[in-house]
């Protein structure tokens, strides 16, 4: 038996909004430690890595690990039935073929439950070893969203080059080219949320498909800041931490010239 209650259904909604365009079906792996999700898009270009720790839930009980294979478009539709201030409870029996989502309004006057059929999705786990990156950039998430939106007007590949002085996003297309440089915040009076920091060991330059990066920025509502980690020749990591709950990170394999 698995049961987890989240005070804010809206949080889960936002997570789903961020990933549903990248992956169609995914397994939510529920274990005593929490809920995690790993999935790649069809073209195997991006990897989504979501972790929701059990202590972030209002209540959480999971006797044995289970995998809930869900169609994300269906789940997203169900979540649309929840109001933002509703609480959400996920329930599944062991060996079940459905999962139940219960939404309760804050004043308890409205309770709705939805059952979604589980899918059998081949499960592959990808272990991610976190180690040091050449550049770790922390910036306001809205800023990244805007950069992606602005550059998408011109091109479909973004070149990101980072060094101590700043991080430059550039693109070029048939109609022209554009560069946006973000410098680290020096003014200490600015709140940590709104400031940019760059921890650069060595300069690094990588190309990425702007399309995917733009998809990632759909996670902007989850967190005021975003962390990007880059090293030459490896996928970029774009991480949104979810306060008190866990994180949602995206890996994107670089494009060659």
């Amino acid at each position: 038996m698995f049961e987890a209650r989240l005070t804010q259904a809206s949080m889960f909604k936002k997570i789903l909004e961020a990933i549903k365009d990248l992956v169609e079906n995914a397994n939510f792996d529920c274990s005593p430690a929490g809920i995690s999700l790993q999935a790649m898009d069809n073209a195997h270009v991006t990897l989504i890595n979501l972790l929701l720790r059990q202590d972030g839930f209002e209540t959480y009980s999971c006797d044995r690990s289970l995998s809930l294979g869900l169609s994300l478009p269906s789940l997203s539709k169900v979540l649309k039935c929840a109001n933002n201030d509703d609480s959400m409870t996920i329930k599944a029996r062991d060996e079940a073929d459905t999962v139940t989502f219960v939404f309760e309004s804050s004043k308890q006057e409205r309770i709705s439950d939805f059952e979604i059929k589980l899918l059998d999705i081949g499960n592959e786990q990808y272990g991610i070893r976190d180690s040091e990156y050449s550049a770790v950039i922390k910036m306001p998430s809205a800023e990244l969203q805007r950069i992606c939106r602005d550059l998408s007007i011109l091109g479909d590949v973004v070149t990101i080059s980072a060094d101590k002085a700043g991080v430059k996003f550039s693109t070029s297309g048939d109609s022209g080219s554009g560069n946006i440089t973000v410098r680290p915040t020096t003014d200490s009076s600015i709140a940590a949320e709104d400031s940019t920091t760059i921890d650069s060991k060595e300069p690094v330059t990588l190309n990425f498909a702007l399309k995917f990066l733009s998809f990632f920025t759909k996670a902007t509502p989850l967190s005021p800041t975003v962390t990007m980690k880059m090293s030459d020749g490896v996928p970029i990591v774009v991480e949104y931490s979810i306060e008190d709950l866990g994180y949602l990170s995206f890996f994107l394999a670089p494009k060659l010239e």
Partner: protein
Amino acid sequence: MQSSMLSFLTKKTDSTSASQTSPKKQQQTSTTSKDDDKKKSSTTNNNNDKSSKLKRKNRDDEQVEEEEEEDNDIFDLSDDDHKVASQVSSSSSSNFEEKSISPPTPTPTKPKKAAPKKPAKSTTKKTKKMEEDPKKNNNNNNSTIPAVGTNNNNTMSDSQESSASSTPIKSTSPIKQTTSPTKKDNLIPTVTVLPTKKNLETTTSTTSTTSTTTTKSNDENEILEEEEELEEEEDEEEVIEEEFEEEEENEKGETVVLKKKIFVKKPVKQKSTAKQLEQELTNLSKYHPITDAQWKKGLPVPYMALAKTFELIEGTSRRLLIIEHLTNLFRSIMALTPGDLINTIYMSINKIGPSYGGKELGIGESILMKAVAESTGRTMEFIKQELKTVGDLGIIAQSSRMTQTMMFAPPPLTIQGVFKIFSQIADMTGNSSQNKKKDLITKLLVSCKESEALYIIRSLQGKLRIGLAERSVLIALTRAMVISPPALIASEPNGKLDTRKGKTTEEFASVIDAAVAKVTRAYSQLPNYDLLVPRLIVADGVDTILETCRLMAGIPVKPMLAQPTTGITQVLDRFQEMEFTCEFKYDGERAQIHLTEDGKISIYTRNLEDYTGKYPDIIANVKRFIGEGVTSFILDCEAVAYDPTNNKILSFQILSSRPRKGVSLDQIKIPVCVFAFDLLYLNGKSLIDEPFYKRREVLYANFKETPGALTYAKHANISDVNDIQLYLQEAIDGNCEGLMVKTLKEQSIYEPSKRSYNWLKIKKDYMAGMTDSVDVVPIGAWYGKGKRTGVYGAYLLACYDDDNEDFQTLCKIGTGFSDEQLKEFTEILAPQVTNSCKNTYIVSDNLKPDVWFNPSQVWEVLAADLSISPIHTAAVGVLDPNKGIALRFPRFIQIRKDKNPEDATTASQIVDMYKNQKINSFKMVDEDY
């Protein structure tokens, strides 16, 4: 097309991964001893006359080699990563060019021998490399970066090569671990790859080609020509000591080759002499279905095995070789994974079910282009552009290298998996089905290696174009059954599985011929591999196939067809001293009516299309015309449009205006009468082995002539020339096409799907067809595809309307041209290309040639006849307010240099020609009886 970031992340199947990684890291590099082995094996490959001793030695070495190969893998991956990393950072475009075109290769999925490693090996090779490859050296310093495996391919072909030199690996622990390089400063995420078990155990690709040669026990050991050619790309440099260097060379070599091939059609058909052919066949006969196979017993057959076979087939034009290649694949499948045999057969004939099931692939080009663009990270424009020069989307898919790297390489494709997705795609309907199809195709393409993409795209297009006829598939299947019969597989599962030993070629050929005849006949009675194959792959399957595979009501068979003749005398020559009968040849649609024991009635066309939905009236009539006690039958007949009030036969054209699907009984405006002429099956008993006069008797006894529902085909047992001539005239006057002449007693069994000389047809067309040629003007053209890449493949022709002074389209033409003419016309007409359709051209919106020409030439064209057409505009409004006249089956004759475009045949002449045809009844599909 593959690349993956294997080195970045850990793919784990269980929790053991991390602990297993660490000891491996120290042995990334391989040894010189490996290189030596390599050299040995390559020399063997290259020198045909090497003694088998050496080969055996090689085989002995394999145990050792295996371990070394593993090391090698690890090394290569890491090294490769460096290289790519260097490319990314230095943005060297030329490097990328090489990468981008080199052919995709499959993932290394070698099971790992769980033997202890010798860490001592690590440095030797690396040092060497540094000396020899300065470019790479640059990067060895900061090569801590494990990197994007864009070119895992290198690694992969590398590992294949190494594995190729060994017999299939007897793996104990199927865990593969690849580590990224560890250097002094371990900056970057290091990685272990533990692919899933399934993933691992399938050995892939080139393995077998090489191992074929290596494991050959024979002293001669000639390398098969095609295989050699295939290998060349990988093998030619093998003598070079430095393995990586060699890869590099290959990449370059490949680049050049592919670039050249862009404008030539890729497969170069070999013209070999009879002697060479014999030699190749001898070599192919040495194939060992177990050790030469690319996968192991019980595992799903990798799609690569089929793709490789397709490549070999496409590489030759010799039917015997084609059959032999396929035979060998079938033998392996029967010995190792018999469950995949049916799917493999369907894939070989590019079907996804029995042909009467109506399931078809034939995906539109734009969906495929989108999928190719998405899976390779290229733009649609780029692919469209490329398509103009290459002409084959499959080749583009194969040669488009990804600019986008991947997180993880997907597991290799299996025949089962591909077949399943093909079926899903074919079954998909509804609004978002296009997108879903595209997604599924993208998914398939992402997993493709080497030529897999080529054949997947072509399969999806519905045209494999490798010169593999269904008949060859049947022969190959039979051969495989005879050479490696299931009984033999059961008794010695690891043997050579070859019954040819100890038989002379002639003896064996006669056994094969007899078996092929049986299987072909069995298939023609039961054209369904799902039913046929299980009955065939049992002990004595071939011997009993005709008993086990009988005609079944509900399963349509291809109808027997007649040979055309030019006149009555020809018929008499053929049927000297035989009893024969003449039948009216009705001008309708061939229909095969089935009634099964459970009362289900279905109707199929001669192409086995299910037309049950088109003829609810026939179904309703069946009850009226069957005799008492008839519980099941298969009736061969002609469905003809019929005017019940005047009891008159109507023309085919009227029949073809009936809607095709979902006709409801009360909406029928054009009634149909069935003209029955043969009965194949009655009450559970097949009649096709009975002589025709008997079948006819049974037909007359069990089916009642019912006005407007069923009529026996009118016949006369006459043999005098004059009688026949009169009878023919009578048939034509009765709105029939002509006469069918059939043997009555001897040689008169029903032979499904055969165009038999025991049935002859005399058609009015053959006797007095369209004798006048037409002079027309080419006004537009379509780019050629496949063989016709680079020239215009089809032209749009128009006649001249002197009243309105404009050109009206008459037909599209693509036949009658020689290759030289195609080239010549392309050159002549290219200067005449104009940007858009001229306003003097009257063209339907449905016709969109790729280019338009100024009117400049007149061509003489001969056609079978003329028909009313909704597409073409010749004389539009004269006979039908919205429809014009079109030429049917036009053939190019010559250029009329003496004529100007305005001297072309006029629209009014076309109208006259149309009117001069005796009955204007033309068949769209059913050209032959």
